[in-house]
């Protein structure tokens, strides 16, 4: 099958690769770049586990072709904090026990990063609405909402 050359930035590193046009961004990240933090739970755009930021907007990497990202800048969970140096959102998730099996977590985090950048998130309803495109089977969402609520409040303090 024909291949197309693409060049894109992932978490600040530039990658040049030749990919089949049908290759999903999720598979490209996981298999070609070995960035396995981005998970796939449905491959049909419902569960949100595969969420990454594409030029600052959250997208489903299972519904995005790698070739569509030529010239783009991608951010995945590996681009947040690190073990021993979690970022404040990750810390808040940890503190509130907002993850159990951790499989939905990268997608939840990337969605939350997007929400925190764009919306006031002043009510729980707004947070729940914002997270409603990401399924979690373990937590019942209660603690995820708490974690995002705290991150939203801390963000306000930073700005003040």
């Amino acid at each position: 099958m024909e291949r197309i050359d693409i060049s894109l930035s992932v978490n600040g590193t530039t990658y040049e690769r030749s990919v089949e046009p049908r290759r999903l961004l999720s598979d490209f990240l996981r298999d070609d770049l070995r960035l396995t933090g981005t998970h796939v739970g449905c491959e049909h755009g419902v569960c949100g586990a595969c969420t990454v930021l594409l030029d600052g907007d959250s997208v489903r990497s299972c519904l995005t072709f790698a070739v569509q990202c030529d010239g783009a800048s991608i951010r995945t969970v590996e681009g947040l904090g690190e073990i021993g140096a979690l970022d404040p959102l990750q810390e808040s998730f940890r503190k509130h026990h907002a993850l159990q099996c951790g499989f939905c977590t990268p997608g939840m985090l990337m969605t939350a990063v997007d929400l925190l950048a764009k919306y006031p998130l002043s009510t729980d309803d707004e947070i729940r609405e914002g997270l409603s495109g990401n399924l979690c089977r373990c937590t019942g969402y209660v603690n995820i909402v708490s974690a995002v609520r705290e991150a939203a409040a801390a963000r306000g303090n930073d700005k003040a």
Partner: protein
Amino acid sequence: MSGIATAGAADVARPGIVGARVQRREDPRLLTGRGTYVDDRKVDGAVHIAFCRSDRAHARIGRIDAAGARQAPGVLGVFTAGDIDAVARPIRATSNMPDYRATELEPLARGKVRYVGEPVVAVVAENRYLAEDAAGLVSVDYDPLPEVTDPEAALEDRALLHESAGTNVIAAREFARGDVDGAMAGAAIVVEDRFRIRRKTPSAIENRSCLAEFEAGRQALTLHASTQVPGLLRDALAEIFDLPGRRLRVVAPDVGGGFGAKASLYPEEVVVCALAMRLGRPVKWTSDRMEDLTATSQAFDEIVRARLALEPDGRFVALDADVIGDVGAYSIYPWTASLEPVQVVSFLPGPYRLQNYRGRVRAVATSKAPMGPYRGVGRPISTFVMERLVDMAAKKLAMDPAELRARNLVRDDEFPYKSGSGIVWDRSGFQDCLRSALDRFGYAQRRTEQAAARNEGRLVGIGIASYAELTGIGSRISAAPGMPINTGTERATIEIDSTGGVTAAFGIASHGQGLETTLAQIVAEELGVRVEDVEIIHGDSAAVAHSTGTYASRSTVLAGGAATLSARALRKQAIEAASYLLEAAEADIEMRGGVISVAGTDSSITLRELARAFYTEMRRIPKEARESLELSASATYDPFFGTTTGATHVAEVEVDPQTFGVTVRNYVVAEDCGRIVNPMIVDGQVHGGVAQGIGAALYEEVVHDESGQILTGSFVDYVVPSAAEIPDMAVIHLETESPSTLGGYRGMGEGGTIGAPAAIANAVADALSGLDARVNELPITPDRLFRLIRDAEQRKGESRYEA
């Protein structure tokens, strides 16, 4: 905090680490995308399988044409039943339960197919894209066979799914106690209905995945699998392939949720192993969501006819039930098809005083994915049925449903109490749970508010559900009826290595429960070290001599017990070794926070120094002592019977008369999980369980049409609730320490899912109480709710809708 512990003072660990909100050690890797789930394991040379699955519910397999697929790019081979049979025995779940008929499951279907989604052909190619391309080129001819899809019709055996069984009823059982017919005949009040709960699927967000690697030199096979039961798989695969266990290792690395779906042996796991040996390449299969929704074990599919008889004062006098379990096409290994439906009749009498009970159950094979364990197993259904009957009776008696429960729940002075089905409840807070849940909910106040809302024409309802379950089951009771597998013991081995590091190995397999953290808490507290000093090994069949895994709310009780016993044994030996170094009597030596010291002095050594002295500085401890002591200890714990876990859930819902949607407004759980290891984790388990229970009550349903085609093959059609549907909830822990388990722990991983469907159903029925709507089927989807309301209004002759 009530709580009596029959354990002596010495058995109650020093307060501090156990019971604390210790942050999870799993989190940093999972939060940074550095976890390792099976599909994250990328090995050189790995090839991928795509399965061609049956698109018929019941058909004879004709010609299979794979010529095109074999020629397709990157294909290594196309395999059918005969290729697998040659090296693997079929899967056969046996049981010594009378009236049980084992059904054989071939890893790839042979002769005929029995459900849509059953694997028929395995195509192996260099990667998943190419494997799926080639699978699309395979064509299979099918000759249709008569439908066996409706469980009640299938009872009549007009067409058989398994000819060798001679019937579709592959398991049957009856419990009877007291004089049900006499008590029913003499009762003042009888309530009854036909209840149905529709098929669910556990839907862990990580799909199943497995990777088999065969080392030709050692002739050894390693399977990485997204499973809850690596030990159980190791033992089963050793038999299927006739390999010695020491050359067969099953590892469950990070696992993205299980909920029972990953607690059984699957055909795909056998196929990857068989083909890895045959091809000499690592072979991987990662399920997609459609495969998961069609071919992972399903659950909760029962029809229950039940009646409850009461005295005029509300005392329960008799309960009679007939259960039909739609168990799908095969008896799942190792639990068998009897697991779920038999639990329904076992637990139907609930936490109530009730001495006349008859429960009859038949498990019927139909053309659907096999029924397997799912969070709660049987108890969500038994609780739904019993709690609906209780509310129906309360209405008939014009008694508050909370009061009716209080009159019948087993009281504190009546434990141990033998239930109508023969289960013995140990001392636990049934009445306390009810009281605490109502208090926290503000029951009286909310009833007043509800009345006001009703006056405004709003459909607001309050529902209560109380239940009890057995958890932490020991060797005396089989986790599934008559199953020839030991699920009642756990062993732990704890070792202090030459650097002073502590490693504790277990047979359980944590997949979201945070057992790396909670078991480290128990080991740290019992041994006298810091939590961060303890490494927990789990999910690896090679780490222990025998293991099964994590399921049935067992791991804290069983592995916690084994951790306690082995940590105590190790502590004793470490102190004895230290006595030579500290030149003090053992009785004067204590160990805390990884420091071993002589009480009342400043003489102390660290664990690291002890280890160095023991393993390398050979002159410091006498030879005889070094030979007789070990800085390691193993112990096995068997709770024998297990223990009781009880809870009460209270829910408030509002029904929208325009959209027929149900909104859950308020949710309270009061549960008695015994001694708590980590309250943060316990809360999380309850939240997640309740969310799944709300899904079961309102949203989730596997739908088949009459021909057995599955209509819910995506997350668009199988509706898993999101953050917008699940409310905030309050959780109250009672902590009545179990008198039956070491440490006083009770299992609690499943409870949320057991109480929620019943509480929601009762709340919806209460919201519609003016209509006398029969809330007897779950999930209560908008469509069902519309019909329910329309039918009730028509009965009353006041319908808003055309007939």
